């Protein structure tokens, strides 16, 4: 592996963020803020029916409304709209029905686009939607996954033969990564079987999605509220046939994503189609209600899980069968989400035999795709819940059962039953710290006394000892999983004449603080002031290469690309320094931003002096280009595996059912930390979303397939009053798969917290037979 980074001055500091100045003063560049000369506004009519044939669409009256420039049905675009791409066909025989951006003759979920109006103002466009007549012929809805895969079920897509998109299977005996699962099931001394439900969630990023498209000749410039400007650019080329070199995508300020903006959306395609047809710039900004029913949802799995153990509490096998709801269509990585979870059901445990089988199922609901954690929260919930259940059946303390089965710190690197190699970790240390912080023994004593007193408010203690895989992803592994693209990341560093530095990154931040963290990395690497580093991202013209931000990948993959680019700059500068100092390159040392001749301190040249010398180019080494700039692309060999122990104490009122989180302790091990302030913020936000899954949020459909939680009135995104303060701490087991030693933190809190809270509630109620 690459050499480790030298002792840092900036790395590890709680630098306040460079990003904040314009955000706290309202000098923002959200896509919806943009107004171009002559810009028109798109409004989308969405289907009120979950499943219906479209007999007729009449937009003629809408065309006559004031200010209306164009009104369109699906028929107007059926030959040119292509399909929303699915980049992850998880099996060779996966069925993909195709995903029109606007329905042509059938709608398959409520909220699907069925007609479009483009007008001078947004209000005029929305008013004109009322003048559109559509005749629907209702079809039976398909809402229940288990029923949808039975023989004779009503079909979502009538041209297909079933509602199953794929079956993806892994078995450790066949894969050679462990024993045969059938043997483990047959020989089990204890078998614990449970069914868990991962409810459907809505990412609910605060900034509604918005897109502005400006057609320029054959090409387009698109501003979009997206996590993935680079992927979007390529997909606009592949799906709509616009030459890639003529597509520019800009992600300006982006107001959160959480996976929800890891997408190539119907709205982006439709805005492009109408803008090109009319030859005018067009803006589309969704309402929150539109967002809730048309932006992709997350989770939604039925989990059937069996854990086998010996009588003394050693795990012998794990058998997982999933139904995963794809919704009506496959979007960018919909099928891949449960497959990411396939490698995580074994969690932190040594399990000799493992099977995972997942059916991807179509229903007449909004498509699902990545949401914070993407597959890993589902897996973590299942394993952490069933370990608690097994402990209860065995009559063993749940932490003791974990200790008997987890990978110990001296066993790393450890290759799991899935064939993944965990890089580093110390579950004992994180657990000990968490137990100490929460005051575990005192809480257990209080729990016992409340139980003895038959207190109506019972206390429950929940454990989640989790790991996850971060740093998506080694391209070789993505290829073996049939993902269409790679998982590398790109960076460029440009030394300017005045000695300041531009860092171009292919990561595309939308709240993560990359400008600050990347500046800290480069400041250390090049020995330049933090303030002198400018980080450029989110525009395919200024940052032409990248794989964007998701999957807790940006620091471990994108940050490493920055480190590698900096190394190349230093190599070039060393050559110039040797020339300027009339020394051999081998005798040049670099430290703290200064190149000097070994053994001759005080003779050095700063990197800024060298940058100016190269800019002037009067006297360069023979044959050297007048540039210190460098590019680097990093493709990780393996993932990194952060872990942690989260403990939750809840009070449950047995008379009202009210749950109150009394304390929540999160001890995370995410390897080396660049900026502890940013890390803490990521943990807090992640916890809020995972706790919300446990206590507050669910996307609910009625019997007709209407989303009944289609606004923030009905879908409970927690407020400050709904959440507790969290106690956070860290242990440090540096990653061995990147030179920063960093793991990932963006998803950890969300992955860990849902089972911690649910385990606590079950623990409170277990004596009552729950």
């Amino acid at each position, binding site marked *: 592996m690459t050499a480790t980074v030298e002792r840092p001055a900036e790395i590890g500091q709680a630098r306040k963020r460079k990003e904040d100045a314009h955000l706290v003063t309202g000098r923002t560049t959200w896509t919806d803020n943009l107004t171009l000369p002559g810009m028109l506004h798109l409004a989308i009519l969405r289907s009120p029916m979950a499943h219906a044939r479209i007999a007729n669409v009449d937009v003629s009256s809408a065309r006559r409304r004031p200010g209306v420039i164009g009104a369109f049905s699906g028929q107007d675009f059926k030959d040119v709209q292509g399909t929303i791409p699915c980049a992850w066909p998880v099996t060779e025989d996966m069925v993909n029905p195709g995903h029109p951006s606007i329905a042509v003759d059938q709608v398959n979920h409520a909220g699907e686009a069925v007609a479009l109006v483009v007008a001078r103002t947004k209000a005029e466009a929305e008013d004109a939607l009322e003048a559109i007549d559509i005749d629907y012929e209702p079809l039976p809805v398909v809402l229940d996954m288990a029923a949808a895969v039975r023989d004779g079920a009503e079909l979502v897509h009538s041209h297909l033969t079933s509602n199953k998109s794929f079956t993806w299977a892994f078995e450790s005996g066949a894969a050679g990564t462990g024993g045969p699962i059938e043997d483990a099931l047959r020989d089990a001394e204890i078998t614990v079987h449970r069914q868990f439900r991962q409810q459907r969630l809505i990412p609910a990023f605060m900034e509604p999605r918005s897109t502005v498209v400006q057609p320029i000749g054959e090409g387009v410039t698109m501003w979009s509220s997206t996590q993935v400007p680079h992927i979007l650019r390529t997909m606009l080329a592949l799906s709509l046939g616009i030459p890639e070199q003529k597509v520019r995508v800009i992600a300006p300020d982006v107001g959160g994503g959480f996976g929800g903006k890891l997408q190539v959306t119907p709205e982006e395609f439709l805005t492009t189609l109408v803008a090109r047809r009319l030859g005018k710039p067009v803006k589309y900004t969704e309402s929150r209600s539109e967002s809730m029913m048309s932006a992709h949802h997350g989770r939604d799995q039925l989990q059937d899980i069996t854990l086998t153990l010996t009588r003394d509490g050693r795990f012998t096998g794990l058998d997982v069968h999933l139904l995963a709801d794809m919704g009506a269509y496959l979007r960018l990585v919909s099928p891949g989400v449960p497959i990411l979870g396939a490698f995580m059901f074994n969690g932190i445990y040594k399990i000799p035999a493992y099977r995972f089988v997942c059916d991807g199922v179509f229903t007449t609901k909004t498509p699902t795709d990545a949401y914070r954690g993407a597959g890993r929260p589902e897996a973590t919930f299942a394993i952490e819940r069933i370990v608690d259940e097994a402990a209860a059946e065995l009559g063993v303390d749940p932490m003791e059962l974990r200790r008997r089965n987890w990978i110990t710190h001296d066993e790393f690197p450890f290759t799991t039953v899935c064939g993944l190699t965990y890089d580093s970790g110390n579950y004992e240390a994180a657990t000990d710290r968490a137990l100490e912080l929460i005051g575990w023994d005192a809480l257990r004593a209080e729990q016992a006394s409340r139980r003895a007193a038959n207190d109506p408010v019972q206390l429950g203690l929940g454990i989640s000892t989790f790991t996850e895989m971060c740093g998506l992803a080694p391209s070789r592994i993505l290829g073996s999983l049939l993902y269409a693209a790679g998982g590398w990341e790109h960076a460029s560093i440009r030394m300017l004449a005045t000695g300041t530095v531009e860092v171009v990154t292919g990561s595309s931040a939308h709240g993560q603080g990359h400008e600050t963290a990347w500046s800290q990395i480069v400041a250390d690497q090049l020995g330049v002031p933090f303030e002198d580093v400018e980080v450029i991202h989110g525009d395919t013209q200024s940052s032409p290469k990248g794989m964007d931000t998701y999957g807790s990948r940006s620091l471990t993959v994108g940050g490493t690309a920055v480190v590698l680019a900096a190394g190349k700059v230093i190599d070039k500068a060393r050559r110039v320094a040797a020339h300027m100092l009339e020394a051999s390159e081998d005798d040049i040392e670099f430290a703290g931003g200064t190149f000097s001749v070994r053994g001759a301190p005080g003779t050095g040249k700063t990197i800024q002096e060298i940058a100016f010398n190269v800019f002037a180019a009067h006297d360069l080494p023979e044959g050297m280009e007048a540039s210190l700039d460098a590019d680097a692309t990093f493709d990780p060999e393996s993932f990194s595996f952060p872990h942690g122990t989260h403990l939750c104490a809840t009070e449950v009122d047995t008379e009202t059912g009210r749950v109150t989180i009394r304390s929540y302790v999160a001890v995370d091990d995410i390897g080396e930390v660049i900026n502890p302030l940013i890390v803490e913020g990521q943990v807090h936000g992640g916890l809020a979303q995972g706790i919300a899954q446990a206590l507050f949020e669910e996307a609910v459909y009625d019997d007709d397939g209407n989303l009944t939680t289609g606004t923030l009135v009905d879908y409970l995104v927690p407020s400050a009053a709904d959440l507790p303060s*969290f106690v956070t701490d860290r242990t440090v087991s540096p990653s061995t798969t990147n030179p920063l030693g960093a793991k990932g933190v963006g998803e950890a809190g969300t992955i860990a917290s849902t089972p911690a809270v649910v385990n606590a509630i079950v623990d409170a109620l277990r004596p009552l037979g729950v």
Partner: protein
Amino acid sequence: MTQLGVTVDGVAYRDDVEPRMLLVHYLRERLGKVGTVVGCDTSNCGACTVLLDGRSVKSCSVLAVQADDRDVTTIEGLADADGTLHPLQQAFHDQHALQCGFCTPGMIMAACDLLRDNPNPSESEVREGIEGNLCRCTGYQNIVRAVQAAAKTTAATS
């Protein structure tokens, strides 16, 4: 059309507006005050919060004409003319109380009103006081810290 005279961030405006126009749309579309944002259509998220005669309102639930003859302060008018940040803006930066920053304008304006009523709020008073404003990034912990830190700064300087 109805005539509207309103002062926004210290500047007097006079405009003809449709009676149905919401204050937030007037601010964004007519005045270019795009620092104030729209996050929902049910008055739940609070992202559009501004001060109307010094009290916080969700500008998506106020008609532009209701601001006639009144004084509106948005996030863009909160800092001093010389660029010195308002104590809440500074505290949000210092305490890492924002990530994507989309909720931040509304959150800060709501907190302004909270501190006017209660210059020294407890943690739970802050949590209750800003419950009409949603943030999806921070888990609120650092927002609470920031509001309490701003309260201290304000007390120290007044």
